[in-house]
C-alpha cells in the first residue's frame, strides 16, 4: 500500500512563511489564516504523491557527471517524475541539481517538488522559488508577483509545467558539459543572459560557445542533442511538455526498459487489491532478502516511530544550525502603532531561506528497536487467536497495562501495534473480528482513521460513490455550512487551513445531498471534524465513515423534525441518571436542571462539540465499540465527574458551569462509562426511535458487526419478552427505566424451559446480582411469584413521609442497596411510583419490569412458596 522505506533515510529542510502585515480581517470578518497554516493545509496532499521517481524528503547521493547514456536515463527518469507531478497539477519550479537526487541503485528521486505548490505559487513566502541559473526565460519575464493586499489576490497565472522542462534542459546541459552554467555572472546578469537567448538561433550551440565547450557538444550522441534542443526551446509554446518528451524518439531505446508505474490500490477501494500481486515461481526468493526489518515498513510508519523515539524536526534543524533563533528580548520592536504595525526591527537574518536538507538520523530509532524480534514484524494471524495479540516480548505485555497516553508514546509498543493493525487491516474485511478484538485493547494513532472505518464496517466503492455525489451545485444549506466551518475546531492547524475548510464544505455537502430525508443541523460540522482530520487526504473515506456513523449512533437525529427522537433520547438519559446516580438525579430534578438544557449538543454531536480532538479520539475509540446506548453512559460519566459541583450549586450556577464545560478527565470518563454500561440492563436504554437492526442490515452490513462489551441486545431480543412501545408522555412520567422480561430472566439466571437454550452457564458468584420486589398484595404474591423475589405491597410499603415501613422485607431491600432492584407489579403505574419512591430514598439501579407480572406468567417460571413452617 505504501512505499517501504528500503534504504532511504529521512531528511528535513525549512523555510519561513511570509508574515501577514498585521490585523487584517477577511471578508467574513474573521481574522485571516496565517500563511503557515495555509501551507500546512496544502502540504497534506503531497503525502499522497507517491511515485518511484519522487522522494518524500529523502536525502541520498547527488549526481553531477556521467556518460551520455547515463544522462539519457537520468533525463528520462526525471521526466517521468515531472509528468506524474503535472498530472497532479503540481509545478516543481525549484528544479536544480540539488533537487534531483539518486537513490542507492542510481535511480532518480526528485525532492522539494512541493514547495511551489504549498506556498501558493510563492505567494506565501518572501523568497523567490527556484535557482537563478535554472529559471526558464518566461519565469524571469513574468517577474516576482506578490499580491499587495492579502485579502484580494489579483495575479496572473503561476508558472506552467513547461518551465520545469527548461530547468531540466539546463541541468542535462550541465551534466553533458561537466560544468556549471553562468558561474561567473551575478544574479541579474545571469537572468539577463537567459532572457536574451530569445534572439539566438541555436541556444545549445551558443551556450556551448560561451562556456568554451563546443567540442563536447559535437561529441554528444544525436538523441541527447535533440533532447537538449527540445528542452531548451526559448518559446514555451514550442517547447514540449514532459509527457511529450517521454514519448519522444530520443528515448526510443531506453523507454522500453521502464515499466509504467501504477499506484497500488488502497484499502477501501473498489479495485481488486490483489490484482497486481504475483508470486515468483520460487517462493524462497521472497525470503532471501535478509535486510533489516524496519526497512520494509512504510516511510510514514518509520517517521511516526522516529518521532516517538524522541525525534523532533525543529531540534534537529536547530542542532544543525539551520534554524538560528535569537533570544526574544533581542528582537523586540521599538514601537507599535495603534493598528498593530510595528517598527524598529530590521529583517531578521535567521528568517532567510536556507534550503539545505538535513539528514535525520535513524540511529536512535534503530537502537530503540534493536531488541524487537523479527517475528514482531510479521505476526501470524491464524484462526487460533490465542497467540495473536502478544507475540512480542514480555516487555510489551507489561506496557499494555500502562495508561493509554503512555502506550501511545511508547516506540516498541506502537511498532507492535502498528504492524499488527497494518496486517489486520490488509486482511479487512476477512479479519474484521480480530480488528474488533484488538481495538478493545487500543488503537494505534497512526492507523486510527482506517481502523475506525473498519469498525464502522465501511465497504464498497466509496470513492466512486463520493465522486458521483454532487458537491458543487449550490444548495440552501450552503450559507449555514459557510458560517459553521470557520468556527469548528479551529484551534487545530489542519482544520483551520483553507484546504481544510474546502474539504469540510465538500464532505458536509456530499452528506446533505446524499441524505435527502435528513437535513443539516448545526453540530454536523463538529461530527464531521474527527473523520475529516483522520482522513484528510481521503475525503471519500471521511464521508463514508460519517455516513456509517450517523445511522448507528444518531439514527434520525438529523430529521427535519427531530423533536420526538431527541425528546425520547433525553428522557432515557434522565432515567439513566436516576438509575446510576439517584442523589444527583434528585438534585437536578429539584432545581429543574433537565438534560434538555445541556445535553442536546452532547448527543447531537456525540461529544465532538464539547471536547478537543485528542479527547474525542480516545472517547470514540471506545464509543465505536459500543452500541447506540453507550453514549448515555458517557453522558452519566461526565455528570459524575462534575458531581460535587453540581450538587453544591443551584440552577444558575449549573447553567454557567455547562455553558463552558470544565476540563474532563477523558480516560477516567471512558473507564467509568464502560463500568456504567456493564451495570445497565440491555433493555433499559430501549428506544423506539433507535435504528432497527433489520433495516440496518441490508444498508451497510452493520448488523453482523461483532458484539461490543455485552452482546448487542437487539440481536437476542425475542418479541414476546422484549420491551413494548409506550407513549413519550408515559415514558417521561417515569423516573426509572423499564427493563424487559427477558433481561430480568437473564439477570436472575432463571432457566427458561420454553426456550431450549440448553443449560445456562453458571457464573462463579452464586450471589444474586439483583433483587425483585413484588409490590402486589400478598395474596397475589402467594399465588405465584418470581423466584427469589420479596413482597412489599405497594399500599403499605411507605410511611406518610416517604420512608420505608420497617420490616423484614425492607431490611432485605436495604441489604440489596447498590444492586439492581426491579419493581414488579400488576400495572406499570404502581411499579413506577414505587421505583420513584426508592430513587427519592437514594436507591441506585432501580428499574421497572415492563409489562408487569403479566409478562412473566406465560414463561412458567413463577413459583408458589412452600407453606411456612
Amino acid at each position, binding site marked *: 500500500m505504501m512505499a517501504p522505506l528500503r534504504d532511504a533515510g529521512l531528511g528535513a529542510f525549512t523555510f519561513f512563511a511570509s508574515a501577514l502585515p498585521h490585523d487584517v480581517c477577511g471578508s467574513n470578518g474573521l481574522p485571516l489564516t496565517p500563511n503557515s497554516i495555509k501551507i500546512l493545509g496544502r502540504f497534506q496532499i503531497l503525502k499522497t504523491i507517491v511515485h518511484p521517481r519522487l522522494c518524500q524528503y529523502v536525502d541520498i547521493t547527488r549526481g553531477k557527471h556521467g556518460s551520455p547514456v547515463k544522462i539519457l536515463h537520468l533525463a528520462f527518469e526525471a521526466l517521468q517524475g515531472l509528468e506524474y507531478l503535472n498530472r497532479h497539477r503540481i509545478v516543481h519550479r525549484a528544479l536544480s541539481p540539488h533537487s534531483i537526487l539518486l537513490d542507492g541503485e542510481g535511480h532518480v528521486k526528485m525532492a522539494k517538488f512541493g514547495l511551489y505548490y504549498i506556498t501558493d505559487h510563492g505567494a506565501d513566502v518572501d*523568497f*523567490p522559488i527556484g535557482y*537563478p541559473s535554472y529559471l526558464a526565460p*518566461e519565469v524571469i*519575464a513574468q*517577474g*516576482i508577483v506578490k499580491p499587495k493586499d492579502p485579502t*484580494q489576490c*489579483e*495575479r*496572473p*497565472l503561476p508558472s*506552467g*509545467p*513547461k*518551465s520545469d522542462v527548461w530547468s531540466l534542459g539546463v541541468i542535462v546541459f550541465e551534466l553533458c558539459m561537466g560544468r556549471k552554467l553562468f558561474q561567473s555572472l*551575478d*544574479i*541579474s546578469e545571469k*537572468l*539577463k543572459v537567459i*532572457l*536574451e537567448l*530569445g534572439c539566438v538561433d541555436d541556444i545549445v550551440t551558443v551556450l556551448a560557445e560561451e562556456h568554451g565547450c563546443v567540442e563536447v557538444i559535437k561529441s554528444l550522441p544525436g538523441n541527447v542533442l535533440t533532447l537538449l534542443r527540445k528542452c531548451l526551446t526559448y*518559446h*514555451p*509554446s514550442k517547447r514540449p*511538455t514532459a509527457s511529450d518528451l517521454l514519448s519522444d524518439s530520443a528515448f526510443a531505446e531506453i523507454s522500453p526498459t521502464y515499466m509504467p508505474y501504477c499506484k497500488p490500490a488502497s484499502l477501501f477501494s473498489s479495485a481488486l487489491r490483489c490484482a497486481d500481486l504475483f508470486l515468483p515461481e520460487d517462493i524462497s526468493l521472497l525470503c532471501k532478502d535478509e535486510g533489516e526489518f524496519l526497512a520494509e515498513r512504510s516511510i510514514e510508519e518509520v517517521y511516526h516511530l522516529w518521532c516517538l523515539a524522541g525525534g523532533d524536526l525543529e531540534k534537529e534543524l536547530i542542532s544543525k544550525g539551520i534554524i538560528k533563533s535569537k*533570544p*526574544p*528580548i*533581542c528582537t*523586540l*520592536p*521599538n*514601537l*507599535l*502603532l*495603534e493598528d498593530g504595525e*510595528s*517598527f*524598529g526591527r530590521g529583517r531578521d537574518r535567521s528568517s*532567510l531561506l*536556507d*534550503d539545505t536538507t538535513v539528514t535525520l538520523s535513524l540511529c536512535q530509532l534503530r537502537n530503540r528497536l534493536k531488541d524487537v524480534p523479527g517475528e514482531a514484524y510479521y505476526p501470524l494471524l491464524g484462526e487460533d487467536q490465542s497467540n495473536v495479540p502478544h507475540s512480542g516480548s514480555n516487555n510489551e505485555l507489561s506496557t499494555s497495562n500502562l495508561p493509554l497516553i503512555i502506550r501511545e508514546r511508547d516506540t516498541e509498543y506502537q511498532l507492535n501495534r502498528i504492524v499488527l493493525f497494518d496486517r489486520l487491516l490488509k486482511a479487512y474485511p476477512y479479519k474484521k473480528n480480530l480488528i474488533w478484538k484488538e481495538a478493545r485493547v487500543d488503537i494505534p494513532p497512526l492507523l486510527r482513521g482506517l481502523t475506525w472505518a473498519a469498525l464502522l464496517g465501511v465497504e464498497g466503492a466509496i470513492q466512486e460513490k463520493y*465522486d*458521483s455525489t*454532487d*458537491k*458543487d*451545485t449550490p444548495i440552501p444549506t450552503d450559507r449555514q455550512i459557510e458560517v459553521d466551518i470557520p468556527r469548528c475546531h*479551529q*484551534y487545530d492547524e489542519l482544520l483551520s487551513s483553507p484546504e481544510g475548510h474546502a474539504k469540510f464544505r*465538500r464532505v458536509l455537502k456530499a452528506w446533505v445531498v446524499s441524505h435527502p430525508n435528513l437535513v443539516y443541523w448545526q453540530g454536523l460540522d463538529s461530527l464531521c471534524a474527527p473523520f475529516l482530520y483522520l482522513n484528510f487526504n481521503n475525503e471519500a473515506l471521511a464521508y463514508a465513515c460519517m455516513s456509517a456513523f450517523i445511522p448507528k449512533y444518531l439514527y434520525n437525529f438529523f430529521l427535519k423534525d427531530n423533536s420526538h427522537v431527541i425528546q425520547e433520547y433525553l428522557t432515557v438519559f434522565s432515567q439513566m441518571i436516576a438509575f446510576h446516580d439517584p442523589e444527583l438525579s434528585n438534585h437536578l430534578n429539584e432545581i429543574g436542571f433537565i438534560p434538555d438544557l445541556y445535553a442536546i449538543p452532547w448527543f447531537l454531536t456525540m461529544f465532538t*462539540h464539547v471536547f*478537543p480532538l485528542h479527547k474525542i479520539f480516545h472517547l470514540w475509540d471506545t464509543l465505536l465499540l459500543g452500541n447506540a446506548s453507550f453514549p448515555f453512559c458517557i453522558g452519566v460519566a461526565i455528570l459524575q465527574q462534575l*458531581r460535587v459541583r453540581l450538587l453544591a450549586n443551584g440552577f444558575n450556577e449549573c447553567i454557567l458551569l455547562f455553558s*463552558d464545560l*470544565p*476540563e474532563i478527565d477523558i480516560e477516567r470518563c471512558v473507564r467509568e462509562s464502560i463500568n456504567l454500561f456493564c451495570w445497565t440492563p440491555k433493555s433499559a436504554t430501549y428506544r423506539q426511535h433507535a435504528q432497527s437492526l433489520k433495516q440496518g442490515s441490508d444498508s451497510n452490513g452493520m448488523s453482523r458487526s461483532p458484539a461490543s462489551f455485552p452482546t448487542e441486545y437487539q440481536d437476542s431480543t425475542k418479541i414476546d419478552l422484549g420491551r413494548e412501545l409506550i407513549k413519550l408522555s408515559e415514558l417521561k412520567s417515569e423516573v426509572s427505566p423499564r427493563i424487559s422480561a427477558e433481561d430480568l430472566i437473564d439477570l436472575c439466571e432463571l432457566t427458561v424451559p420454553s426456550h431450549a437454550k440448553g443449560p445456562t452457564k453458571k457464573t462463579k458468584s452464586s450471589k444474586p446480582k439483583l433483587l425483585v420486589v413484588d409490590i402486589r398484595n400478598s395474596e397475589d404474591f402467594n399465588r405465584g411469584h418470581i423466584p427469589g423475589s420479596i413482597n412489599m405491597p405497594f399500599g403499605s410499603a411507605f410511611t406518610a413521609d416517604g420512608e420505608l415501613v420497617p420490616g423484614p422485607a425492607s431490611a432485605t431491600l436495604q441489604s440489596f442497596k447498590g444492586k439492581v432492584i426491579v419493581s414488579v407489579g400488576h400495572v406499570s403505574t404502581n411499579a413506577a411510583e414505587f421505583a420513584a419512591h426508592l430513587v427519592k430514598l437514594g436507591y441506585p439501579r432501580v428499574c421497572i419490569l415492563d409489562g408487569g407480572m403479566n409478562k412473566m406468567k406465560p414463561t412458567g417460571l413463577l413459583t408458589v412458596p412452600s407453606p411456612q413452617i
Partner: protein
Amino acid sequence: MKPGKGKPCYTERDFVYSFHVGSQSFVLAVPLQFPVQENLDHLHGRLMLLHDLPCFIEQDLKKSLNQFVKEETIKDFDREAEQALEAVNLGQVDVGSLANTWMTAYTETTLEHARPEEPNWDEDFADIYHDLIHSPASETLLNLEHNYFVSISELLGERDVELKKLRERQGLEMDKVMQELGKSLSDHDVNSVAAQHFEFQQMLENKWSTELKQLSTIQKQEYQEWVIKLHQDLKNPNNSIISDEIKVQPNRFQESADSSQPLYEEHGQLEESFTIHLGAQLKTMHNLRLLRADMLDFCRHKRNHRSGVKLHRLQTALSLYSTSLCGLVLLVDNRINSYSGIKRDFATVGQECTDFHFPQLQVQLDVVQQVVLYARAQRNQKAKHQQETTNGSEGRSDKVKNAERNQSNLLPGEFYVTRHSNLSETHVVFHLCVDDNVRSGNITARDPAIMGLRNILKVCCTHDVTTINIPLLLVHEMSEEMTIPWCLKRAELVFKCVKGFMMEMVSWDGGVSRTVQFLVPQNISEEMFYQLSNMLPQIFRVSSTLTLTSKR
C-alpha cells in the same frame, strides 16, 4: 471555492463531447472556467449524474475531459508565458530593472545570496552571558553585579546627603531673606535669591548625574570585558586567574537602610491568585493575580531583603535571554522623555543599578524618538499614495489632523518598548500612551488604550513575554473622580477585554500558559480590593480546586 472571486482572468470554454447510442448521436457541451480549480473526478461524477449519461461512456468521458483540460491549461500557460516574454522583447518591461528585482529578492531572502552577516556585538554578548549565567560562574557574576550595585548606591547616597545639605543651607538663607523682606529687600531680591538657589540645585544635580552616568559607563565597560574574559578563561581553564570568587562587598548603606525601615514596601500589599482555563474545546491554563501594589515595585531592588536582592537578580538574570520574559505596562503621556510623573520615577529607579546589557534608558528613548519620526514619515507617504489613488475627502481630514499635531509625539494606544537587565523583576517595559480620556468613566472596548493592551499582549505572544503586569484600572494613581462605581466599571471592562485577548492569543501562539498580573494602585481601599477580587473569578472561569480524595 468562491467562483468569480479571488483569481481573475477566468476564461470560459466549452468542453464538447459527442457519443453515439445506437444510431443516435448526442453532443454534450459543458462550459468550463479556466484555470480549472475543481477536482476533475468530482466534475466528472457530477456530469454523469446531472446529465443522466449512460455508464458505458463513463471511462471515455473521463479520459477526454482530462485530456481537454490538460491541453487547454497548457495553452493558457503558454499564452501567458509568451505574453510576458513578448513584453520583455518589445521593451515594455525593462530588462535591467526586472533582473534587479529578482536579484534584490534573492539577496534579501536567501542565505545563499545574502550579504555575509556583520558580527553583532549584542548578540554575541547575549550568547556568552546566557552560557555563563547558566554555569557555576553565575555566583561570581552576580557578586560582581552586586558590588557594582553597591558602589552606585553609595554614590547615590552621597548625592542625597549633599543635596539635602544644600537644601538645608538654602532654606536657612531663604528664611533670613524672608525676614528682611519689605525692610531692606524687595520682592525682586527674593526672586533673584530663589532663582539663584534653583540654579545651584540644578548645577549640583547635573554634576551628580554626570558622575552617575560616567560611573555606569565605566562599570558597563568593565563588566562586559570581564564577562568576555571569564568566558574565554572557562574555555581554556589552564591560565585562570580571574575566575576566583569575588566576595560580596558589605553594603554599609544597605545595613543602615535595613535598621531604619524594617518593612519598607511590604506594608499594604494585597495579593490574590487564580488559575483559569480558557478555550471552548481545547483549554489552556493561565495564572492570574490581583495585586495592590506600585507598578515600580517590580523594578525596584528591595533593599530590606538581605538575601532577596540576589535571589531576584538570579531569577531575572537567568531568564533574560530565555523564552520566558517578564514585562510590565507603564502608562505614559504622549511625549517620549523622562521628565515628569511616572516616567521620571521609572528613570530614577533605572539609575539605581547599571544596565550591563542594554543601552541606558535615555539612549533607548532617543532611538524610539527616531523610530517614531520614521514611522510617521512612512505613514504619511502611504496616506499620500492612497489619497492619489482614491482621492477621498477622508484622507484630507486626516492630513489636517496630522498637520495639527507634533509629529514626534505619540497617539493614544501607541506604545514603545524598552529593554532592561537592571530591574528587579522585569525585562521588558511597554510604555503605553494614554490621554486624559482614561480618567473618564465611559471608555469602551474600542478605546485606543484597550487596543494598545491588545497589541501589547500580541507582542507578548510573539516575543515570549510570559509574565505581564497590567494596571487594572488603567491609571497608576487614584484621584477623586475615581469612585467605587467607576473602579468597578473600569475593572470589569479591562478584565473582560483581557479575557477576550487571551482567548485570541491561543490562536496566535497555540496556547502557551501565561501569568497575567493585574495591579491596582496602593491607595485603594482594602474593601475595594476584595470587591475586585470577587469580580475576577466571575469573569474568568476559575478552575475548581483539585479534589485529592477519591469520589467513593
